[in-house]
């Protein structure tokens, strides 16, 4: 079991929550806000700070996990050997073990998606979604040219005719869409 990686990963959510709570409090107590607003924020921020701090301590000091009081708040199913119902259901539905290289695929998917968001207004939705689909398929390990082209073209067609056409979603357009639109 990779203890350090697990422990650090578990810190992300409480740290984010605490960070946001501190930011909200700082903004509202230094800025010119009404007392009721700041009070409401404070009532929400206190539980976030307390619970977040508690969870961080729980992660950093493993001995805490043995206390009965702590276990009431953060159950440790790996110790008792008993999975909760939800975990059992998810384990049953999750299928066989993952292929190696998960982080690479994740980084590719998220990276390409952010790149698409940044490029969308410049290149227009047709090109952006087509290139995105091709790149993600390649990153997922699909190598058949026919499959890649078929899926990407089908995706773009659905976006163009259903979302931009039928639903009339104002997706960012560029030269290709204008050229197509001019022909119709």
């Amino acid at each position: 079991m990779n203890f350090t990686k697990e422990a650090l990963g578990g810190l992300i959510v409480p740290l984010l929550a605490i960070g946001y709570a501190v930011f909200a409090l700082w903004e509202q107590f230094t800025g010119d806000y009404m007392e009721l607003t700041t009070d409401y924020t404070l009532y929400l921020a206190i539980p976030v700070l307390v619970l977040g701090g508690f969870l961080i301590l729980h992660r950093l000091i493993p001995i805490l996990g043995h206390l009965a009081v702590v276990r009431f708040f953060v159950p440790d199913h790996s110790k008792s050997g008993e999975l909760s119902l939800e975990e059992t259901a998810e384990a049953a539905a999750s299928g066989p073990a993952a292929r190696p290289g998960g982080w690479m695929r994740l980084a590719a998917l998220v990276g390409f998606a952010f790149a698409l968001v940044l490029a969308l207004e410049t290149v227009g939705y047709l090109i952006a979604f087509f290139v995105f689909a091709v790149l993600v398929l390649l990153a997922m390990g699909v190598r058949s040219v026919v499959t890649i082209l078929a899926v990407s073209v089908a995706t773009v067609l659905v976006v163009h005719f259903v979302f931009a056409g039928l639903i009339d979603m104002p997706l960012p357009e560029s030269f290709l869409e204008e050229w197509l639109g001019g022909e119709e």
Partner: protein
Amino acid sequence: MPDIAIEGFYLFLANIWVVPVGVAIGMFVGAMPGLTSSGTLAMLLPVLMVLPPEQGLILGVSIYAGAEMGNSFPSVMLNIPGTPGGAVTAFDGYPLMQKGLAARALGICIMSSTIGALIGGVAAITLAPLIAQVALGFGPAEICIVVLFGLTVIAQLSAGGLAKGLLAGFFGLLLATTGTDPTFGQFRGTFDIVYLFDKLPVIAVLVGLLGFSEVMVHAEKGLRSLLADDVKVPDTDVGIRGILTGFVDTLKRPIEVIRAGAIGLGIGAMPGAGASVATFVAYQQSIAFAPPERKKTYGKGAFEGLIAADVCNNAVVGGALVPLLTLAIPGSGSMAVLLVVMVYHGLYVGPRLFQFNGDIAYAVLWSQFAAAFFVLVIGTCIAFFAYRAALINLRIIIPVIAVFCLLGGFARNAYVFDMGLMLAFGCLGFIMKKHGYPVVAILLGVILGPILEANFMRAFRISFGEFDIFFQSTISWVLWSLFALTFVAPPLMRLAKRFIGGREGGAGR
């Protein structure tokens, strides 16, 4: 009251064509491991929002009902549940398939799901207006307590435990304060980004947390399909005679059906616990009540276990509708999507829904009966090949779903910024899932945050800034004691279970 029920019935009749479409989509989604009903509904949000409110809601409920049936097909044929709610179906369904009784098992699944949906429908249409009537007496203080109650129940039921669930819930509430302060009109938490001046775009958050995080889970696994390596694709043919025998098998066990239906309703109505938890409980109860000589057959192809699982996961749909329509507290991720659709169309969410948009509420409730009928018809028609949806290459689906999610984030405001926000919340959802934080809790926080804040401010203005108002009425005391119960009951139940479990010698799963 009855007038509006009849009005709702006419509205439903005018839109009845939506139901078979929804059930068919739902069956496909359910039969395909990797697509969950909540993720699919999140993906389809642009479509749900474009339709008129009654059609969008009926479509959503029908997809949910169809998915809870469809997940049984791959469970029985291939031992992989289509959604977590179908996991229990595989316990007894797959052994039956191996014995050559696939058709009969599928028949039981179809009939059980139909009856489950009927039980859910009857209960929802009788209970929802009654509860709404009671809830009409809720003042702003009581509504605040109900919101907190909902968040606590989710936290208590989530696998990661109370602390993580509550943290996620309050983080969500805090995130919901982003944008313009509704009381005084000041900007807060906007980071000076113009796109956040209105408020945090709930739809982008929802699509990211429910939809995109799911894509990321599959991208990390990178599997062609979720089938276990040792499972062979069966070539047994499913005959109509076997399916009909399965129908009869189900109808012969009414007590089993009613017990599982009641469990599904009850757990479905609880916020945060979806079909996956409900089916496990129903299955365990079915074992507990079985005569000793039948107990051994569970897990080896007991009809009772199959019935319990399938009645239960469809009854959950009706149960989950009750708190959604009466208190605006969604019982699961799928219901959260429907709540967002309701808010988008400007319906009166909460107890006043039945007063001002009663026809739509009743149309949705009536549509469940049509959904039950179409589950029976469509389920029987596609039983022969539906499990093949589980063989679709998951890696090809990933970019398609990702594109749908991006469009879903974009749909509400048409800001490209919202797409980026959707991605950010997708990453957050993924990390939360990896570390046992309930995604539904933070989502509920974001959705209910504005409601909580508005009512909190209203309560405070009524009472001139005194906290007394939260303890004044009898209703609020009842609600507070329920609230306290969510902290006290689970450890007591755990103790009781240990006591009973010791006596029965672990007849569990």
